[in-house]
């Protein structure tokens, strides 16, 4: 069998210097939350281990995950990513098309059976035999089942494939499901986010290459290093939260001064992601830093926790109402009923007394 090129060889071929390569390794070590002593290990692994082929499948999704990955403007990251994901198959950017592309993917999977990594973007519609999403003449379900047979691990990239996102939102007409619900016999790692951060995707892949294993996962199959903490707990506006200083409306004074966005619906307190640590676009900023509340895009079924600009979601009864409206209605209802009952009781007793008094009066008269 032909020796597979290593990751380092691949990036060197595409013109990346040794220095840039090392910087990438160092950055990734840091993102993965590893000790600095792990740095040489990562360098060595990327230099010596054959680069595992990665097949990137697109199902029911908006392709924002691909965008997040390939548009990551970090010169290192973007080049390196394209090097690291040997991208034998990625519909959005591959050169091949049609039958040729399909041939490449199945040929490659056969050749690398048991060794390749499957990255899946998008959820899989399951209703009516899965007809709502077909690729290369197969339904997404068939495609996924076939492609996953020889996969070493499956990376669910983005909220659609991890938990369900816009494609699975209520009423979910296509019966779309996230990957882990369909593939249960392979290790699956969820990288939710709409889209997920490029560094998170790359970090997970580097971990796979270096240690031949997935990073430690939490109970929702997310890597703990990236999804272990709430946005809220690493948010730089937290001091304003604790102090009780809140933006009341977009464009008010607090908004200009950068106060906490809790009252305009920030979901940071219930959202697990790396945004407030890794940030976006080379660490330039992240939504909260640019004055927008967190929408909780990396949480399960986040579209159903509507509306988005409210930190407690509405109660999903017909018509959707806030817990407060229903609760206040209930409390007022109880108050009115109780009041009516009390008044009736008092009136009844009073009239009884009046009657008794009359009876007694009559007796006296007699």
């Amino acid at each position, binding site marked *: 069998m032909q020796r597979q090129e290593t990751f380092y060889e691949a990036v060197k071929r595409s013109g990346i210097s040794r220095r840039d390569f090392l910087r990438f390794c160092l950055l990734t070590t840091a993102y993965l939350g590893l000790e600095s002593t792990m740095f040489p290990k990562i360098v060595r692994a990327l230099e010596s281990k054959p680069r595992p082929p990665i097949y990137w499948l697109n199902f029911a999704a908006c392709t924002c995950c691909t965008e997040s990955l390939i548009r990551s403007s970090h010169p290192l990251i973007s080049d390196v990513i394209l090097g690291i994901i040997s991208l034998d198959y990625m519909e959005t950017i591959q050169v091949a098309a049609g039958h040729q592309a399909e041939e490449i993917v199945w040929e490659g999977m056969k050749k690398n059976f048991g060794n390749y990594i499957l990255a899946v973007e998008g959820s899989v519609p399951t209703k009516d035999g899965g007809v709502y999403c077909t690729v290369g003449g197969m339904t997404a379900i068939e495609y996924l089942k076939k492609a996953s047979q020889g996969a070493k691990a499956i990376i669910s990239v983005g909220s659609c494939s991890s938990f369900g996102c816009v494609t699975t939102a209520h009423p979910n007409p296509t019966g779309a499901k996230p990957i882990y619900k369909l593939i249960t016999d392979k290790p699956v790692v969820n990288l939710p986010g709409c889209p997920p951060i490029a560094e998170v995707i790359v970090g997970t892949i580097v971990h796979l290459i270096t240690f031949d294993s997935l990073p430690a996962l*939490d*109970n929702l199959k997310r890597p*703990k290093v990236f999804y*272990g*903490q*709430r946005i809220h*707990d690493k948010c730089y506006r937290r*001091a*304003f*939260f*604790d*102090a*009780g*200083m*809140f933006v009341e409306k977009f464009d008010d004074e607090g908004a200009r*001064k950068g106060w906490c966005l*809790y*009252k305009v619906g920030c*979901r940071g307190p*219930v959202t697990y992601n790396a945004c407030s640590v890794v940030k976006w676009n080379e660490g330039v900023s992240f939504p909260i830093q640019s004055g927008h509340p967190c929408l*909780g895009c990396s*949480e*399960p*079924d*986040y579209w159903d*926790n509507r509306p988005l600009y409210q*930190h*407690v*979601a*509405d*109660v999903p009864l017909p018509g959707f109402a806030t*817990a*407060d409206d*229903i*609760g*206040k209605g*209930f*409390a007022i*209802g*109880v*108050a009115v*009923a*109780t*009041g009516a*009952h*009390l008044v*009736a*009781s*008092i009136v*009844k*007793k009073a009239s009884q007394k009046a009657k008794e008094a009359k009876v007694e009066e009559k007796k006296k008269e007699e």
Partner: protein
Amino acid sequence: MQANQIYRVESECVTRYYVWDPVVRISHWINVIVVGVLIFTGLYISTPFYRPNVDEPFGASIMATMKNLHFLSAIIFTLNGLFRAYWWFAGNTYRQWFRFHIWRADFWKEAWWKLKDYITLRYTDYELHTLGHNTLATLTYVILFLAASVQGLTGFAMAGRINPGGFFDTLFGWVIPLFGGEANVRMIHKMIMWGIIGFMIHHISFVIYLEVFREKGMLSSMITGLKTRPLGWEPIEKPWEKGKK
């Protein structure tokens, strides 16, 4: 004093029955304080209605204080509730009144009769054991107790997520997937708070009414432990069966 003995005090015009032992009374007033704090701080956490008059967040810590108070009261509330649950079985007087036999037809007949009795403004005093709670009230308190338990579970589950994998998260982490995610957990926590507020409105209005207008000693019984009935009052056995004949 033996469990089944009824301790009564007769005065010139009323009979007083000893119903609530000191543990029940103290535990009740702890609840009053703590639930009041929980509701107030909970409402603040949910809709922070006061903004400190400062330009910088240094020195002000209103939200943090509210959260800490909420958590502290929650712990007292929980311990108090657990102790109270134990007291159902160990308590001297209360145990005697506590009858929750939902598997018996009589329980439901009695509850239904009491509901009608209550809606038609009769307020009949019947069997002796109902000096504590009548069946309808028992049912209400059990539902309240369950609601408070869910409130505690959801609360501690939310609190646990501050430190994933930590003590509270390990103990209560399972609650979150059970209710379908943290957003739902918060929503439920909030709904139950309104439920509790609804209960309180009714509860407080009626103990006052029964104290002042009916002279049953409802409110004062939580202070003295004694409930009042008219002199010469005789318990009625199974009034719901008599009604039918």
